[in-house]
C-alpha cells in the first residue's frame, strides 16, 4: 500500500541520492563479538550442573580428609582417648619386662628355686641386659 509509488519523482530521486552514501564500516570486530557472545552464553549454568559440581568437590574433600586406619591421624592435633588407651595396652608389658625393679626379684627367686640353670635360661629369653660373668652375678645376688 505504501510503496515507492506513493512518493513523488523528486522524493524518489532524493531517496536514491541519499542511498548512495555508504555508512562508515562497522568498527566492531566480528571475532570480538563472537568471543563475547560465546562467553555470555557459556556463563549460563543449569542447576544440575552446579549440583554435580558441588558433589564432586565434596567427594574429593571426603577422600582427602579420610582418617588413616593404622592410627596415624593427619589432621588431629593431639591423641584422642582411644589412641591413649591403645598406647597404654601396647607398651605396658614391655615396660614391665625392661624394668629392673620387677625382673630382679623374679630372677632371684628362680635361682633360689632352680639353681644357676635358671640364670642361663633367663639370659636366653631376654637380650635387653648385657651378659655378665656368672661369678659376678652370683656375688651380687648373695651380697644383696
Amino acid at each position, binding site marked *: 500500500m505504501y510503496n515507492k509509488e506513493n512518493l513523488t519523482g523528486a522524493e524518489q530521486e532524493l531517496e536514491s541520492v*541519499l542511498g548512495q552514501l*555508504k555508512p*562508515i*564500516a562497522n*568498527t*566492531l570486530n566480528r571475532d570480538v563479538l563472537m568471543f563475547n557472545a560465546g562467553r555470555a552464553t557459556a556463563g549460563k549454568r543449569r542447576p544440575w550442573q552446579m549440583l554435580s559440581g558441588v558433589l564432586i568437590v565434596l567427594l574429593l574433600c571426603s577422600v582427602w580428609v579420610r582418617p588413616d586406619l593404622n592410627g596415624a591421624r593427619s589432621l588431629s592435633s593431639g591423641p584422642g582417648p582411644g589412641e591413649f588407651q591403645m598406647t597404654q595396652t601396647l607398651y605396658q608389658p614391655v615396660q614391665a619386662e625392661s624394668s629392673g625393679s620387677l625382673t630382679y626379684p623374679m630372677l632371684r627367686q628362680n635361682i633360689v628355686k632352680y639353681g644357676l640353670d635358671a640364670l642361663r635360661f633367663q639370659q636366653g629369653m631376654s637380650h635387653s641386659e648385657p651378659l655378665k660373668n656368672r661369678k659376678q652375678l652370683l656375688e651380687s645376688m648373695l651380697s644383696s
Partner: protein
Amino acid sequence: MAAISQKQLAEWYEAYGTELMLYARQWNPDQQAEDIVQDAFIKLLKQGRCPENVRAWLFRVVRNASISIVRRLQQGRRAGRKFLHRDVMWFESRPENLIDARLAQDILQTLPSHLCEIVLLRIWGQMSLKEIAQVMSKSIPWIHNEYKTALEMIRKKLEHSSCTTKRT
C-alpha cells in the same frame, strides 16, 4: 522459532552490523554505539529462540537501549545528542557521492529526532514502512506521512545549502 547458532549470528552481524551502527550513532557516541550493537547481538544469542523478524528485532533492541541511555543522560542534565556526537562521521566521504557526506549528516542531525530515525531506517536500514512501524510502535500511515515530511525538509535544506554555497 528455531534455536540460534553462532554461525547464524555471524551472518546476521555481517548483514546488519553496519546499518545498526549507523542507527545507534544518531543517539550515541561511537564507542557506546558499538557496545549497544554488540549487546543486541549477544541478547539475541542468549534468547535462544529466533525472532520472527530478526532485523526488526535487532533495530528495536538497539533503539530501546539507546533511548534509555539518552533518558538517563537527560536526567543527569547532560548536553543533548546533537552537541555530543557531531564529531563522529556517519558516512564514508567518497568522490562519486552526489551529495557531500558531512552535509548529509549535518542535515539529518538537524531534523527532529523521530524524522531522522525514520529516514535512517528506511534508506540505510532498507526497512519497509511496516517494519519501521513495528520498530517505532507507530501506525504505518503515520510513518508514511512523517517520512514524506522528512524528505521534504531534507530537500529544502539541501537547496538552502546549495544557494548559500553559490553565493559564497
